[in-house]
């Protein structure tokens, strides 16, 4: 994303200390003591230490770290479920740390929707009543909130079981309801606390993909907490890495993988680093449909429609890559009554060799919205790499190596 981004939430010097004597702990923290030393000396637990970062409008910011690293404390400071010990949290320029309780309730109602790890659906309310909860406490009229609830439920693909109770649904469905409940209040910011961690892996992958689709439709600002590197790489426009209550690094997945700021980050991504061995061939997707040079524009258009694509790679009959054809060009060719597609093939694309290390793909892919075609030594099309599949490939690789090491 290269457009100029406006800051939705600015966090400055945010510190959260759990305990009855936070001043002592603050002093030690300013002297640069670690979480462990402070706990040993004062009995106070440092949840978040001097966090500084921005959340941009419309991005998915992933906060990741192991359990106990302070990520949950951090997200709860943003809507003051945890009362910050010191620091500023500016939402649209307004510091919410000093707000009185009544104003704070308004901020929670208007700005935030929250999704929880274990769903936290109200068991005594139907699905619809759950989704209506936020609107109900704002005093929205019953008809209006029913309408908004149904809209939110359809956004997450759940319209049929509105009169069921949460315990009648599967985990994945319950979390869709959790998401719909958060979306129903039309919040500026979605706070998602390990929202998919309790789901089994297949459903989890679906939900991640749907969240990305949802986000690209609705342009919500999302702060997403996870302990899972796969998930962070897959979802995050940017990633914050936390350790022992401190932020270790803020950056894109690419930044974090290629320029780890500290040795901790380096070790964290060490498994991913083994992906120097990983090649384009390993992370590419098979191209299911291609256009042949002798195809007519109508055929090409129909193939795109069938696969819901807006471009196709063009190959010779032996699959040698010739270029790419786009849907708008094909449409115009049909309108002009052309019989072939030779005129509209774009040949300026640069194919990627099948043995190219994944690392070298970051830069070209982040500049282009188009997938990169992958070819073998003879120049024949073998597949394509898109940004998401690249990161997913890395993530799968990292979890595979983790499992091997554990075994």
């Amino acid at each position, binding site marked *: 994303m290269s457009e100029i981004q406006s800051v939705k939430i600015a966090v400055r010097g945010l510190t959260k200390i759990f305990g009855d004597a936070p001043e002592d702990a603050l002093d030690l923290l300013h002297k640069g003591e670690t979480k462990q030393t402070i706990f040993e000396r004062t009995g106070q637990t440092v949840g978040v230490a001097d966090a500084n970062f921005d959340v941009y409008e419309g991005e998915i910011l992933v906060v990741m770290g192991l359990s106990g690293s302070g990520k949950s404390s951090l997200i709860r400071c943003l809507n003051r*479920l945890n009362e910050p010990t010191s620091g500023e949290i500016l939402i649209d320029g307004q510091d919410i740390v000093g707000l009185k309780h009544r104003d704070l*309730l308004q901020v*929670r109602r208007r700005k935030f929707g929250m999704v929880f790890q274990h769903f*936290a659906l*109200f068991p*005594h309310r139907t699905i619809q009543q759950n989704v209506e*909860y936020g609107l109900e406490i704002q005093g929205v009229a019953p008809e209006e909130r029913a309408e908004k609830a149904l809209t939110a439920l359809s956004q997450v693909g759940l319209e049929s079981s509105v009169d069921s109770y949460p315990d009648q649904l599967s985990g994945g469905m319950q979390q869709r309801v959790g998401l719909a409940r958060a979306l129903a209040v039309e919040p500026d910011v979605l706070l998602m606390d390990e929202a998919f961690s309790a789901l089994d892996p297949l459903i989890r992958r679906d939900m991640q993909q749907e969240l990305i689709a949802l986000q690209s439709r609705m342009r919500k600002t999302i702060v997403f907490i996870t302990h899972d590197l796969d998930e962070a790489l897959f979802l995050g426009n940017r990633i914050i890495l936390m350790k022992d209550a401190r932020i270790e690094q803020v950056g894109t997945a690419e930044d974090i993988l290629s320029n780890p700021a500290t040795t901790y980050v380096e070790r964290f991504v060490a498994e991913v680093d083994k992906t120097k061995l990983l090649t384009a061939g390993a992370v590419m997707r098979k191209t299911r449909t291609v256009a042949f040079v002798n195809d007519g524009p109508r055929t090409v258009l129909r193939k795109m429609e069938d696969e819901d694509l807006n471009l196709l790679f063009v190959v010779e009959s032996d699959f040698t890559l010739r270029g790419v054809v786009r849907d708008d060009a094909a449409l115009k060719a049909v309108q002009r009554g052309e019989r072939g597609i030779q005129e509209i093939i774009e040949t300026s694309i640069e194919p990627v060799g099948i043995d190219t290390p994944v690392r070298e793909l970051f830069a070209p892919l982040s500049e282009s919205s188009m997938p990169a075609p992958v070819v073998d030594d003879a120049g024949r099309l073998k597949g394509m790499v898109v940004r998401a599949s690249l990161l997913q490939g890395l993530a799968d690789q990292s979890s595979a190596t983790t499992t091997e090491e554990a075994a």
Partner: protein
Amino acid sequence: MIDIPRLPLADWIDEGLDALTDQFAPATKLVSDLVETGIESAVDGLMWLPPWLTILLVSALAWRLAGRRTALLSLFGFALLWNLGLWEPTLQTLVLVLIATLVAVAIGAPLGILAAISGGVYRVLFPILDFMQTMPAFVYLIPAIPFFGLGPVAAVFSTVIFAMPPAIRLTTLGIRQVPADLVEAADAFGSTKWQKLVKVQLPLAIPTIMAGINQTIMLALSMVVIAAMIGAQGLGGEVWRAIQRNEAGMGFEAGLAVVVLAMVLDRITQGIIRNRRSPAN
């Protein structure tokens, strides 16, 4: 040896009670008259209905709330008591129990809510509850007399004190055991304390609160029997008379009536708790 004077605890309490009685005599007299009228008219009203009709109505209610077995228990149990000539004392006891329970819950549930929300109230209230529950039940009968005189009102008063603790305790427990993430969710959406209480905490605490009410009813029943000693009528009165006349058979019959009443009340309230568990109904 130094002669340590005996602590005049009893005198202090007597003086305190006397002062209270003098202070509140007009008020307690008024309450006493009102409650007594209420109890009498309730019993009269029930006595006006033919017993077979009341028995059928109670059985039908039991069927609806707790199922067929409880309905049969009510039908045969109450028919037996009618046959034994214990119909009126049974109704008197039932009315006393229900009124005492009503008052105990009306006071106990709000106190329980307060104790759940405020740590301060909790720390003050719960030791008092421990005290109330370990104090022998008979002791509550004594101060009831100067306040309300001998009779059913004094009985209701001491019964309320004796039976209230579970209503308070289980209300507090019910609210406190609402899962933390649900409370957090309610907070995250900007609920006020009141909204959180009414929309999330209380509905989820209801099964536990109902269990507290069930216990309150059982304690009230046992106390109402004991309160016969200070002039409460009903089944306790029958037992008390049997003791004085040394008539074991008569005492057993009255005791059996208490058991029947206890079982019916217990099964019906348990049935209500079970039905509440499925929120769809």
